[in-house]
């Protein structure tokens, strides 16, 4: 059934075209919402079918693998597709109130939907070069979104973003060339088998090239500069979708390649990843502690949290991969939501600089609740989703006697509390320096609904994942097993029927 794989990719492109055609009218933004809703439905169908079948694959252009391009979904890909669609829907509703008419006229909704298409493509492709194409689609669309508004700091952030990401892209392309030279194939499932006859030392070198290329995308230490340089500058809707999805594509690519293709020398490659994970966690969280603006704090926390996911990959035990998968899903929801909330705080309290705002706890208690949930989830407090994510990763580390890395993960958790309570204390508890009482009631009802509904929905998901994590974790366990033993993935891709 190839259409279930193709639809999640097609819907955002079609949405983008129509949203662009109607960019001068309000229809444009509703097309974006409707398209995202359809995307949620399509990706849920994909998820259900993937759960049934284990792995789904479709040969594009009816060329058998490895000669054409294959789209493929295992549980991880399908879950990422669903979560991408959910974030897309939440952000496009939020955008109803957040994106001004100028930005819409400049093509915001088209860029946004192309970005989503790129993310979807990256999650669903089974071909390494095709993955590179989706990376490019994401890069150019995100650059467009980043500079919408044209403020000087946006341009400055945008240039750093694009330049550093281009280095990654070029390195990625170089890596693809090298790998093709070694194996003569681009299909990832095919690569998994082909690399077995490759020279292991050479393969490790190529693996490191990929690690650096994806490391830039995932914002690992010491390659994360572009992220804190740019994420605090664009529209809130834009930074929310970036925060939720972009780095996670890098993490996904790392997980995919370093479980499927580069698993020949785990003692070397994954040991590097372990060190990088620890440093990324620590440096990221300290970077956050140095900031005083909500979005800058949150940006550094993305870096820090990526470390936990990579730690799951680095440990490469079944439980650790469960942790990585669970962490990915949890984090996308929570982090996108926190950026959305920063936007609401900015709207009613006037800024995101903590020294210029306050009083939200007293006069905007509902917003306080909505912030508290993702913030303390991020900080790893039970029984919210972030606790379980951290719990599994730490347990996985302790199970293999990784005392130091477990200690780092726990201390970084403590410093995450430090940052989240800083926002809580200064934006919510401290009275507003101007003596005003910022309140959601000051917003027009339509604006308020558009801003608060997505936030509330995502917060609810955080609570549900936290309270009944059993099902999500069983799912993550099956997904992790597919990653560790990719036989079904490989055979499905290589044997998928040509229609």
């Amino acid at each position, binding site marked *: 059934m190839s259409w279930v794989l193709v639809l999640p990719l097609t819907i955002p492109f079609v949405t983008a075209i129509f949203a662009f055609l109607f960019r001068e009218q309000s229809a444009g933004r509703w097309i974006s919402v409707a398209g995202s809703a359809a995307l949620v439905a399509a990706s849920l169908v994909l998820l259900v079918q993937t759960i049934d079948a284990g792995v789904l694959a479709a040969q*594009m*252009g009816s060329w058998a693998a490895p*000669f*054409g*391009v294959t789209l493929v979904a295992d549980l991880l890909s399908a879950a990422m597709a669903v979560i991408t669609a959910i974030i897309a829907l939440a952000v496009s509703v939020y955008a109803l109130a957040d994106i001004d008419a100028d930005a819409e006229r*400049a*093509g915001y909704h088209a*860029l946004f939907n*192309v970005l989503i298409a790129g993310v979807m*493509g990256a999650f669903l492709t089974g071909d390494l*070069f*095709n993955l590179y*194409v989706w990376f*490019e*689609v994401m890069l*150019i*669309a995100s650059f*467009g979104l980043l*500079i*919408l508004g*044209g403020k000087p700091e946006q341009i400055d952030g945008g*240039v*750093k973003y694009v330049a*550093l990401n281009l*280095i990654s892209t070029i390195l990625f392309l170089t890596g693809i060339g090298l790998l093709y*030279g070694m194996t*003569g194939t681009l299909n990832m499932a095919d690569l998994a088998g082909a690399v077995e006859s490759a*020279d292991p*030392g*050479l393969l*490790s*070198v190529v693996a490191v*090239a990929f690690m650096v290329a994806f490391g830039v995308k995932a914002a690992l230490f*010491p*390659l994360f*500069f*572009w992220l804190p340089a740019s994420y605090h500058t664009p529209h809130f809707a834009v930074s929310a979708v970036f925060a939720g999805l972009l780095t996670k594509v890098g993490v996904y690519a790392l997980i995919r390649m370093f479980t499927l293709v580069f698993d020949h020398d785990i003692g*070397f490659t994954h040991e590097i990843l372990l060190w990088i994970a620890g440093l990324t966690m620590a*440096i990221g969280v*300290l*970077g956050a*502690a*140095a*900031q005083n603006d909500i979005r800058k704090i949150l940006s550094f926390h993305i870096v820090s949290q990526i470390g936990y996911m990579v730690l799951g990959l680095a440990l490469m035990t079944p439980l650790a991969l*469960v942790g990585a998968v669970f962490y990915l899903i949890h984090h996308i929801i929570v982090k996108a939501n926190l950026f959305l909330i920063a936007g609401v705080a900015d709207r009613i309290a006037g800024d995101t600089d903590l020294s210029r705002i306050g009083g939200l706890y007293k006069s905007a208690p509902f917003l306080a609740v909505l912030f508290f949930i993702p913030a303390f989830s991020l900080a790893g*407090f*039970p029984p919210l989703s972030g*606790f379980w994510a951290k*719990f599994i990763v730490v347990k996985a580390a302790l199970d293999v006697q990784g005392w130091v890395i477990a200690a780092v993960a*726990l*201390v970084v*958790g*403590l410093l995450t*509390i430090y940052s989240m*309570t800083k926002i809580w204390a200064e934006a919510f*508890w*401290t009275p507003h320096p101007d003596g005003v009482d910022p309140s959601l009631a000051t917003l027009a009802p339509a604006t308020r609904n558009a801003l608060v509904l997505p936030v509330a929905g995502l917060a609810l998901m955080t609570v549900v994942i936290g309270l009944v994590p059993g099902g999500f*974790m*069983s799912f*993550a366990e099956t997904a992790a097993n597919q990653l560790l033993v990719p036989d079904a993935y490989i055979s499905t891709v290589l044997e998928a029927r040509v229609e």
Partner: protein
Amino acid sequence: MAAAAPTSRGHGLLGYGPTALALALFIWFLGFLPVVSAGQAASWAVPWIPVLGIDLAFRIDGLSLTFALLISGIGTLVLLYANSYLTGDPQFDRFVLFLTSFMLAMLGLVLADDLIVLFVFWELTTITSYLLIGYGHDSEKSRRNALQALFLTGAGALAFLAGAILLGEAAGTYRISEVLAQGKAIQDHPHFTAILILVFLGALTKSAQVPFHFWLPNAMAAPTPVSAFLHSATMVKAGVYLLARLHPAMSGGDLWLYTLTILGVVTAVFASLLALRQTDLKQALAYTTLMALGTLVMLLGQDSGYAMTAFATFLIVHSLYKAALFLVVGNLDAATGTRETDALGGLGRVLPMTALAAALAGMSMAGLPPFLGFIGKELTYAGMLQVASFPVILSIMALLANGLILAVASVVAIRPFWSARQPKTPVKNAIPWTMAAGPVVLAVLGTIFGIMPGLLQNTLVAPTVLSLTGDIAETKQLKLWAGVNLPLFLSLATFVLGGLFYAWHATLRARLAMLDRLPNLDEAWDRFMASIKTFAIALTSRIQTGRMTDYMAVTFSTIAIGLIATVLLRGLPPLSPSFADVTPIHLALIGLLLSGTFMATITRKRIAAIAALGVVGIGVALVFIFFSAPDVAITQLLVEVLVVVLVAIVMLQLPRLRDYPNRFRPGHAVIAAGVGGSVTLVLLAILSTPLDRRLTTFFETASWPEAFGRNIVNVILVDFRALDTFGEVAVVVVAAIASIALLRQNRKGRS
């Protein structure tokens, strides 16, 4: 502090509802007394997270039930009290939500039979405590103290979490009753010491033992009902609970004995000295709470039946009198507007019920007969005397602490009401019955249990001892008159000492000022928090410099180091370059490419740099031509010309490069050489291995018969890999949209 004069109605249903809930829970728990006093336990379990082996398991035995009754019982009275105490407070809805949530979390904590479930509730009490300490959120001090409590107990909690994970791993289960069923076998596990230390860190931060004690007096920033409930009667005993819970499996070793005994005693003595030092009654009570926690911890360090019985008794005694006295102080505060000891006096007649409660609770705290406090103290002395290694020193320390506490009890419970020497404090607000009920009920219970200790003996104390030791026969008799023995003499000595301390307490307080010269951990905490920030800023400003050249340099260095290090550590297959095919044209081409590259790096003019890059591009196109890919070469040539022309046009618009330093940068040269060299090396290695031509062969054979195109490259682009081309088309379109947006904004910005 109350916002308006307290009324018995308070906030109506908003206050009474949760009170009724707490009462219902209390009555429900009472129903378990028959089962538990028979030495049995009730338990439930449903699977929660099968993947991790975590069940929602709960179990009621003696220890849990004692705690559950204290939590729900005191909870009932405190909720009733708070409803009036916070009359007119606009944020009472949140307050009561937090307080009720706390109560439920605390109940979950003591009932949980799964280590991880216990931890979940443990952290829920931390969060609710944070929100309640920060209740007066407008004040900087409240916010700071809330964070301090959260951070310190949160740090301990993370240690405990690691300990719980390791314990679960060592025991093969998270189910506490199953861990305990394995007896002391766990102590042979290689990770036992680590587990113990981690559990200690969690328990001793939560129960505020030296050197983690300082957050507790600061937590008094919370409204008084919170202090009575969380930071005296229940939450701070969570650490004690955890130690008691694990006592059967983990006690007995030297590490357990010495850590708990020494920290407990030091905390008890240190805290009772500081208690006398305070002039704010609430602060004084906070320090006596520390003393009580120290005593409990010290008792848990032991194994003897006396110590265990003393623990079970003192736990109940302390909760009853201390909650009562906190509420008494709350009443003094609500009635007069002050809690300063020297400002309070002559209130006995004006606040008769409060005064009665204060007297009864105060005497229990002082350890006078016939109150339960007396029995608790006697048992404690008996327990100390059983300690094998240093009974004398311990007993003397305990004597000192108890004497001081007697003096503090007098200062708090007697002096404000009955001292003839104190000025009469004017009373502004009347105390409604709802605020008198709590202290009176608690104090009277302490009296009744003292006169009739049999009521507690088999119902709660013996089952608790069973939980602690596994043997109900270890329980000692609770008696007011235990005969003429050493504990009795120690009790008498306590009264004398305490009397002397009270008589000279003003002088002593002044003398105790020298304690201020001790290292102040509270101030050290501020410095610690500031240093985190300073360090973070220093580090971050070095990493995230804001300079593009730094970012580029680090990124390219990472590439170079990564590749070179891997080549060195992992090795490459032997290179077998063959120079047989090299022609002079090839060499010329290489020369062209190299000179273009070199030119681009050294020129100071943008235009020249672009032109030099154009030379490189054309060189690449020539490579394609020589290696028989003319169509690719044409594309490359076209793109190259376009890029040079377009960029040159853009460059003309830019200001001239002026202060661009024309110096050789060896660092950059090394990085560039590293990246270029390592990639070249890898490329050579790969070219030394034969290429797998499966794809090429397929495209060659299938292009015409199956895809109906003779130009293989075109067929690849539009058919075999059409999805790539589709994506690239999207890239071009989006690039156009983005450029137009940028240009339009630019134009608008200028106009």
